[in-house]
């Protein structure tokens, strides 16, 4: 078990709950989702409690995240898209905090499970479709009809565009989940090399130096990936929301 790089992703029931034959158990995934929400809320509420005109360090950090996401959203959707700000900001904070919790040793990484990233991606795409249909009625479908295409091949193009649109939640969820999964497995494997080599005696200890450095470097890289993937999810969400706001291709 010690060297099994997959073991960290196993779901364990902490409090078994079953209602009418359906499993509602409180698992380690649930625990870390609760921790994520608690962590994000604590960060934002506690850091903005002072409401200083001259922000403290914590307040400044909270304001930076706010400004950052607000700017991202505004740049890709215009001021009109700011109505989605609470949604995009919540997604960003949830993913960021979940990724960062996952950086603690022995902690569970919520975003390394495709069920969770998939649920978020489906939420995004349902919001895009729902809002697009509500705002533009039938006009939303011109998203699938690019202009300047000969009539002969238009049906093919439309089908391809629809497929491309439907594959968005898939690529959105795969990207986040694959990044977190691959990163954590790599980290675990390299860390496993260190212990395995070090147990071989003096030469092994020498040989373990390289993977040890690799582990340190990978940890830094993982922190980068944790923040970057949260940002990528947020910016892609805003790009998709932009399609709902301005469907003309």
């Amino acid at each position, binding site marked *: 078990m010690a060297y099994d790089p997959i073991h960290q992703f196993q779901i364990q029931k902490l409090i078994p709950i079953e209602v009418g034959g359906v499993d509602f158990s409180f698992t380690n995934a649930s625990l870390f989702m609760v921790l994520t929400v608690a962590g994000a809320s604590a960060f934002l509420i506690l850091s903005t409690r002072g409401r200083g005109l001259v922000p403290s360090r914590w307040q400044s950090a909270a304001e930076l995240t706010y400004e950052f996401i607000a700017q991202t959203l505004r740049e890709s959707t215009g001021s009109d898209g700011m109505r989605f700000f609470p949604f995009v900001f919540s997604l960003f904070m949830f993913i960021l905090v979940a990724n960062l919790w996952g950086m603690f040793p022995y902690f569970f990484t919520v975003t390394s499970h495709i069920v969770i990233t998939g649920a978020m991606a489906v939420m995004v795409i349902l919001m895009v479709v729902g809002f697009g249909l509500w705002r533009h009625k039938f006009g939303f479908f011109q998203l699938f009809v690019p202009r300047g295409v000969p009539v002969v091949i238009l049906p093919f193009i439309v089908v391809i565009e629809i497929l491309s649109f439907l*594959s968005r939640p898939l690529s959105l969820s795969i990207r986040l989940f694959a990044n977190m999964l691959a990163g954590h497995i790599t980290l675990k494997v390299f860390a496993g090399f260190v212990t395995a080599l070090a147990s071989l005696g003096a030469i092994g200890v020498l040989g373990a130096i390289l993977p040890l450095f690799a582990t340190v470097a990978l940890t830094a890289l993982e922190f980068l990936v944790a923040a970057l993937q949260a940002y990528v999810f947020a910016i892609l969400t805003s790009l998709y929301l932009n399609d709902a706001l301005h469907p003309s291709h």
Partner: protein
Amino acid sequence: MDDRNAKPGPSVDRDDRDDRELAERLHALERELDKGRAARDTEASRDAAPARPGMALGLRLAADFVAGVVLGAALGWGLDRLLGTSPWGLVVFLLLGFAAGILNAMRSAGLLKPGPPGPDDRPG
């Protein structure tokens, strides 16, 4: 410290003038900001995905491409199951999914501009 409080007369006047000046400056700033906002709205750049270093870009393009192919295959397989048209649904939709995957990847690489520069002033 004390002599600042000692002469209230002129400082009240100055405060008043300062207030008016400040209000004017605020208005000017507001106008400037409005200008900026309007510019931002008109150029609300469609696919402003920023350039990122290789690894992240590679994973991103791979995910985009794979998503298209997987979705096409899944749709085709599902249609075959429903309509009993095996294997034609899988064949056709896998190819269409492949095309959609390429489209995804090209779009997120920024190689594809959204449509020709036509009359882009539809309400929306």
